[in-house]
C-alpha cells in the first residue's frame, strides 16, 4: 500500500484541468484566427510535453489513479457543459463527442481487443438511429427502451454478418463489412418505407411526460434543452466506459487479447475462438447501436448520407489516432476528430480527406497511435 502512494495524483489532475480549460477555450472561440492560434498552441504544448517527458508522468499517475481520475473527468465534463449551459451549438458538439466516444468504445471492443474488423461502424450507428426514428413515432412507446432496442437491432444486424465474418480472416473479413456498409446506404436510399434519400424526422426523447426538447428553467437560469441529452449521454458514456474497461481487465479481456494476438496459439490453450469473436462483435455493435439511437433523437433527423462508408472510416480513424485498444486515448481522439472540423469551418469540407491522410501518417510514422495502449496491469501497482 505504501508503494502505491509513490505515484502522485496531482500530475494527472493538473493535466485534466488544463485539458478541460483548453477544450472550453476552443469551444468558446468564435473567430477563425483565434481558433487557429489555439490549435497551434495545443499542438505545441502536446509536443513540448512529450519532449520534456511530462507526458509519461501524467500517464503513469493517470493509470495509477484511474478510478478517481474517472470521477474527476466526469466532473470536468459537467463543468465544461455547465459553462455552456445556454449554448445550443456547443452543447450539441459536446453530446456528439460523448456519443461518438460510446460508438468508438464499441468499435474498440471489436478492433482493439478481439481483432475483429468492422468497417461498417457508421452503418450500425445508423441502424440505431433509424430504430429510434421508427419507434419514437409510435405513441406510448417508452423512449428509454428505444435505446436498448436500437442497440439490440444493431447487434441483430451484426449477427447476420457473423457467419461471413467468422469464416473469413483479415482482408477478407474487411471486405464483408465494407460490402455491408455500401449495401446499407444503398438500401436506405432506394427504400421508400424509411424515407428514401430524404431521410426521416425523429421525435425527441420523452420520459413520463418530461419532454427533452423543451428548454429548462431552474431558479431564473435558463438551460438549453440539450442539457437533458447531455446528462443522458454522459450517463451512457460512463456506463459504457466502465463496462468496456471492466471487460478489458477481466479474464474475458485476456481471452480477447490472446485471440487477437495469435488465433492458433489461443485455440491451443483452449480458448473458444468462435465464441469470443461473436461476443466481442455483438457487444461492440450493441454499444454502437445504443449510441446511434440516442444520437438520432438528439439530431432529430436521420438520412442515408449521414451513415456512409466514409463515416465508418472516420470512426476507424478515431480508433487509430487514439491508439487501438486504449479507451482513454480514443476519447481524446474523439474530441480532436469531432470538434476541430466543426470549429475550423474551412476544413469542414475536407475532413474525410484530412483524416484519411492523418491515419496514413500515423501508420507510417507512429503505428501505435497518439496514446498507445499501456501494457496490461495484472496487479495494482505492478509494473513490467
Amino acid at each position, binding site marked *: 500500500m505504501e508503494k502505491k502512494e509513490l505515484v502522485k495524483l496531482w500530475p494527472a489532475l493538473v493535466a485534466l484541468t488544463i485539458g478541460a480549460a483548453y477544450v472550453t477555450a476552443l469551444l468558446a472561440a468564435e473567430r477563425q484566427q483565434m481558433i487557429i492560434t489555439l490549435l497551434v498552441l495545443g499542438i505545441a504544448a502536446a509536443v513540448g510535453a512529450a519532449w520534456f517527458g511530462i507526458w509519461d508522468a501524467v500517464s503513469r499517475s493517470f493509470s495509477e489513479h484511474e478510478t478517481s481520475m474517472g470521477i474527476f473527468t466526469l466532473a470536468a465534463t459537467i463543468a465544461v457543459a455547465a459553462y455552456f449551459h445556454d449554448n445550443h451549438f456547443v452543447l450539441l458538439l459536446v453530446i456528439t463527442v460523448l456519443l461518438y466516444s460510446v460508438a468508438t468504445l464499441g468499435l474498440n471492443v471489436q478492433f482493439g481487443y478481439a481483432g475483429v474488423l468492422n468497417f461498417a461502424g457508421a452503418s450500425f450507428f445508423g441502424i440505431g438511429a433509424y430504430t429510434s426514428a421508427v419507434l419514437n413515432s409510435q405513441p406510448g412507446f417508452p423512449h428509454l427502451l428505444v435505446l436498448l432496442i436500437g442497440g439490440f437491432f444493431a447487434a441483430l444486424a451484426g449477427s447476420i454478418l457473423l*457467419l461471413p465474418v467468422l*469464416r473469413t480472416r483479415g482482408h477478407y473479413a474487411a471486405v464483408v463489412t*465494407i460490402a455491408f456498409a455500401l449495401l446499407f446506404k*444503398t438500401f436506405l436510399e432506394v427504400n421508400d418505407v424509411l424515407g428514401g434519400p430524404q431521410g426521416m424526422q425523429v421525435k425527441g426523447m420523452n420520459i413520463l411526460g418530461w419532454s427533452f426538447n423543451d428548454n429548462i428553467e431552474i431558479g431564473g437560469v435558463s438551460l438549453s434543452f440539450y442539457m437533458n441529452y447531455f446528462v443522458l449521454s454522459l450517463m451512457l458514456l460512463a456506463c459504457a466506459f466502465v463496462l468496456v474497461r471492466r471487460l478489458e481487465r477481466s479474464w474475458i479481456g485476456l481471452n480477447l487479447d490472446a485471440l487477437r494476438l495469435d488465433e492458433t496459439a489461443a485455440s491451443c490453450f483452449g480458448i473458444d475462438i468462435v465464441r469470443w469473436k461473436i461476443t466481442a462483435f455483438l457487444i461492440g455493435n450493441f454499444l454502437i447501436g445504443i449510441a446511434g439511437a440516442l444520437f438520432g433523437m438528439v439530431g432529430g433527423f436521420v438520412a442515408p448520407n449521414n451513415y456512409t462508408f466514409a463515416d465508418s472510416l472516420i470512426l476507424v*480513424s478515431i480508433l487509430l489516432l487514439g491508439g487501438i485498444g486504449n479507451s482513454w486515448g480514443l476519447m481524446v481522439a474523439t474530441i480532436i476528430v469531432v470538434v476541430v472540423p466543426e470549429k475550423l469551418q474551412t476544413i469542414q469540407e475536407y475532413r474525410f*480527406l484530412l483524416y*484519411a491522410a492523418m*491515419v496514413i501518417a500515423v501508420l*507510417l510514422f507512429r503505428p501505435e497511435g497518439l496514446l498507445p495502449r499501456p501494457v496490461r496491469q495484472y496487479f495494482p501497482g505492478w509494473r513490467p
Partner: protein
Amino acid sequence: MDAGLFAQYVMNGLMLGMMYALVAVGFTLFFGVLDVIKFSHGDVLTVGAFTALATYAGMRALGINSDWLELVVMLVLATLAMAILGMAIARYFVMPLRSAPALNTLLITLMLGTVLRESVRLFYPQGANPKPFPALLPRTSFDLGDFNLRVDNVLMLVSGILIIVGIQYLLNRTKLGLAIRAVAQDEETARTMGVNFTAIVLVTFAIGSGLAAFAGVMNGLYYNEINFGIGLYLGVVGFSAAIIGGLGSIYGAILGGFLFAGLQTIGTVLLPFASAYKDVFAFAVVIAIMAWRPTGLIREKISERV
C-alpha cells in the same frame, strides 16, 4: 423471354463481366507478388477515368476534334499516369509496411483510397456531381431482330479480350512474366535467382493499375457518365470477383468477373423489384459469397505457419 431480349442481357452481362475481370486481375496480380490486398485499387480506377476526362477536356480546348485521336491519347495518358500512381503507392505506402501487422497494410490502402476518392470529389471541377463522359466510339448499331447490337460495345469487348490475351502472353511467354510468377511463388528463391524483387513488384503494380485505368475509361464509355464513387463500387465487386476465382490465379479472376456479372444479370432479370435494388443485390451477393466460400471457388490452400 424472347431471343432478342435475352441477347441484350447477355451482351450487358459480358460488358459488366469484362470490367469486373479487368479490376479483378489487378487484385490477383498484387496479391500474387506481395500477398496484400490493395484496397485503393478501385479508386485508382476512378482517378484513371477522371484523368481521361481531363485529357479530353484539354484536347477539346486545344482544338483537336478527331474522336479516334482523342480516345487513343486519353487511354495512353490515363494508363501511363495510373501505372506511375500504382508504382508510387506500392513503393511509398505498401512496401514500407511489409513487416507490420496485416491490419496496417489494409488500413493504409483503405485510407489511401479515401484520399484519392476525396481528392477527385473536392479538387476536380464539380467533382461531387456525376460527369458526362464523351461517346467517342462509333455510335452505329445493327438491328438483329429485337436485338440491337451496338458497334461500340463490340469494340470495347474485343479490346478487353485483346488486353487480357496480352496480359496472358506477358505473364506466360516473356521473361518479365516469368520473373513475376517466380516472385509470386517464392520471394526468397526468386531473389537468389537474381530477380530484382523491388523492380518486379513495382512493374506488377504498374500493370495492375494500368488495367484499372483502362477499365475506368471503358466504364465511362459504356455508361457515358462517371462519378467519384464508381471506383469504390467496382473495387469491392472486382475484389469479390477475384475471390470467387481464388486470389492469385489470373484465370480465376477473369472467370470470377464474368461469373459475378452473370449472377448480377440473372438477379436483375429474376427479381421484379430489381432495378432499384440492383446494387443492394450485388453487395448481398458479395457477402453471401464470402460466407459460402471464404477463399474462393478454387480453394486457397491453408496452412498455418506457427
